[in-house]
């Protein structure tokens, strides 16, 4: 009996995947076909059909064949538009999903890549409350960007997507559910405020050293004693006093070693949030930084890829 039931279920899943698999994610690529496309009239379609019925009755009652012919033409075009609506989805393939990066609580940009063997128009994707319309041109490729809201760090499965279309006349709505088996990684949210990282080497030279570098930092009013070659003559000519160029030597920023072990007083998530803030600050200041986590160690580095690597490592912490 159990075997029989499971065979029925297997058969059902094979025949009607959209009915039975709607709770089960599927691997990409997902191709839409007749067993998973549903179609119903839109509100306008229902109204229009009633209107056609009224026209039919009127034409028959007044024995007016020209009006009957017009009604038949409209009716035939209406029913054909149902097939066109179905065809606008049939055979469409969701081939890839690229996810951007986002911090928990912010929206993440998903890029859906569709391909098809022919051009299609006016297809819409719903993801939660957001909706995008797109067309597939003759090249057969289309990319759609959708915002996805996030709540907490870590792997987040994609929600169900709905693809739908009312092409061509807005009378019928064909739709299909997509549940791609794909997860997106959401970075942890940094804490607000809090102490700076404990620096391994305190070199004591926090203030920028002015007048000694090569890079022009600012212009300021002349003070007696400024070297004559530092006076900005051209700028001073447009001003009512003398202006002096200030020079500054870029500070050699120290490397930050961000270490999980130094945050022993905090709980798990607070540690992650603090590390995330430090990573953000380090990235903003253009520092070199390394990250030590219980399960992995990220060597020192800088730049956006390094930052993404560190944040992803944080996000994947248990």
């Amino acid at each position: 009996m159990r075997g029989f039931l499971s065979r029925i279920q297997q058969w059902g899943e094979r025949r009607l995947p959209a009915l039975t698999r709607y709770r089960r994610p599927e691997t990409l690529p997902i191709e839409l076909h007749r067993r998973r496309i549903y179609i119903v009239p839109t509100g306008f379609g229902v109204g229009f059909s009633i209107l056609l019925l009224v026209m039919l009755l009127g034409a028959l009652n007044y024995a007016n064949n020209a009006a009957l012919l017009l009604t038949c033409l409209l009716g035939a075009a209406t029913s054909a538009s149902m097939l066109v609506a179905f065809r606008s989805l049939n055979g469409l393939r969701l081939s890839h999903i690229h996810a951007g990066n986002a911090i928990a609580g912010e929206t993440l940009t998903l890029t859906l890549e569709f391909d098809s063997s022919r051009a299609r128009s006016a297809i819409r994707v719903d993801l939660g409350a957001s909706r995008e319309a797109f067309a597939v041109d003759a090249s057969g490729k289309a990319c759609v960007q959708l915002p996805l809201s996030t709540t907490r760090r870590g792997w987040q499965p994609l929600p169900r997507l709905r693809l739908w279309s009312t092409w061509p006349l807005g009378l019928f709505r064909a739709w299909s559910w997509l549940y791609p088996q794909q997860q997106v990684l959401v970075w942890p949210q940094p804490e607000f405020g809090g102490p700076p990282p404990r620096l391994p080497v305190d070199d004591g030279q926090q203030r920028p050293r002015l007048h000694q570098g090569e890079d022009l930092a600012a212009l300021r009013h002349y003070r007696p004693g400024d070297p004559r070659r530092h006076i900005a003559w051209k700028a001073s000519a447009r001003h009512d006093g003398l202006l002096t160029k200030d020079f500054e030597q870029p500070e050699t920023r120290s490397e930050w070693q961000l270490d999980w072990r130094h945050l022993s007083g905090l709980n798990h998530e607070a540690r992650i949030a603090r590390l995330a803030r430090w990573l953000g600050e380090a990235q903003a200041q253009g520092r070199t930084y390394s990250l030590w986590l219980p399960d992995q160690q990220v060597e020192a580095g800088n730049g956006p890829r390094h930052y993404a690597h560190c944040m992803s490592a944080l996000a994947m912490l248990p």
Partner: protein
Amino acid sequence: MRLWRRTARNEPAIDTHAFDLLALTIAIVLLVHAPHLPIWLSAVLAAMLGLRWWQRRQYPGHTSAWLKLPLIALLAGAVVFSYGTIFGREPGSALAVGLLVLKLLETEVSRDARVGIGFGCFALMAALLFDQSLLATILVMLGLLPALAALRALEPARVPTSLPRELLPGLGLVAATLPLALVAFLLVPRLSTPLWGAPNRSEARTGLSDTMSPGNFTELLTDDRPALRVSFDGTPPASALRYFRAYVMWDYDGHRWRHAEMRRVPATLEASDTVSYRVSLEASDQSVLPALDVPLEAPAPGRLTADREVARRARPTNDSLDYSLRSALHYRLQADLPDYARRRGLQLPAGFNPRAIALARQWRQQQGSDDRAIVQAALTLFHDGGFRYTLSPAPLGQDAVDDFLFDTHEGFCEHYAAAFTVLMRAAGIPARVVTGYQGGYWNTFGNYLLVRNSDAHAWSEVWLSGRGWVRIDPTAAVRPERVELGATAAAGNQLGWYRTSWLHDLRNRWDIVNRWWNQGVIGFDEMRQQGLLTPFGIPHTETATLGLLLAVACGLFAGAGLFWALRRRRANDPVLAAMRVLERKLARRGIVRRPSEGPQHYFSRAARALPQQRKALEQLMQCYLDLRYAHAEPAPELTREFQQAARDFQPRRVVK
């Protein structure tokens, strides 16, 4: 204004293209309704449409409710002022067209536009209730194109095109579904009786009137519209014999001749030469059905009167009417004239036309009892007395016949027929006026006779002892062309430039299309529908059969449509197709290719699973890899080889 803006108004406004198409649809609706709307209303609505179109281009946004509400009230007021009521076909459609134009004022979002288009389709259909001629129908069908295009334009994310190109897909959709529409048109069961009141005819159709006074034919004689079409079984009668009798008029009060029916059996008729024919009568107000000369029996929709006119059984309707008849070309009608008829045929009002009566009495004295000689004397008078045929004769006074015979000497068939009949009666010969149609255009292509309103004619019948009633056409004495060639030839160039001969000829030839439309489409009624299957041996098709046929046909079309919709474009990569075949075969043995799996890995996995066929699989893999990666353009024989190998490969059962 806030009151009227719904909360769901945060939808985006429709784009210019969609709006233009909607405005175009409404313009066509206005155009097809214009013939029956008051001119000022059409002009105002057209101006409003244009203004709104211009306004939206210049200052986007919808019109405020403070403008709309008074306009609606104004429109309702105008309709009531113009028609006296708001119910009925004309006021109803005037109101509908007006509301449609007003709807455009507030149309900004797609919902409003869709409502406008649906309503527009309805208004297009309503226009056909007034005029279902071929041209009107084509114009209405053209109105569907911008409507469908506007619906498409409301969809998001379309490939942008120019406005004329927007119309093409709609045309394609209609053309593709035309077979279904035509089958549905043929098979939708027609109603034998209307569900609710058939429309009142309110538009006055021209046609022959049951009274005649000199001059009241003028409007008819300049009306070019078809009156009837006649197809004959066998050869048609000669043009001089094509007299279609409609009204027989006995009563004369000095001003007008009047038709009055007597409740008596039809007059006796001895026919020697008969012809069968079929008449398709255009919508008209006439209460009699024109018949060639003297009909032998009444057709289905009529009955014979005492004077062998064919009176309509039902009230005239807005539709054309078909009937079959048999008529005598040579005959003796009412060989014995009863007394009451003789008295009636000699009756003349006292105190009118003394000079004409004196002339007739003088003829009688000269000719004695020879009635034929008197008739000939009258015809000679018309022929040689300086009479002229014209459609715009001088007005006549109190003694109309005297004035015509002795002063003005000009007129057309009515004048001649009336004067002749008066002369005959004064001379003691029973006579009566007959109106109807004479002549017509023989359409050789369609083998039918087209008779227009302008072919309306009046002549006389006199009773001669031994011969019965004899048709005498005094107009023929003056203008023989009238009988031989038709009204146009007789009128010469009095009818204006647009009736020049070649144009007239073209219009006559074109009429076959109208006839085809009237017979094939407009006249396809319940009776004709029941005879639809006659060629297949079923003389009478029941409504249930029609419904069944319709269902079957719809099913067939649905199947064809589904075939089209489900058809996938074949992968035009033969190597990939062969590979898919191979994958399916292997999948049956449980070796399913994973989406991320490359061909090499897949083949090696298959080779591990099917060790007996390792060699074949490795060959296939090598072949596939060569095809895919070794050449920029793989050799066709290699492709064929791979296809063959993939077809031939049969995975054996996995040995575990």
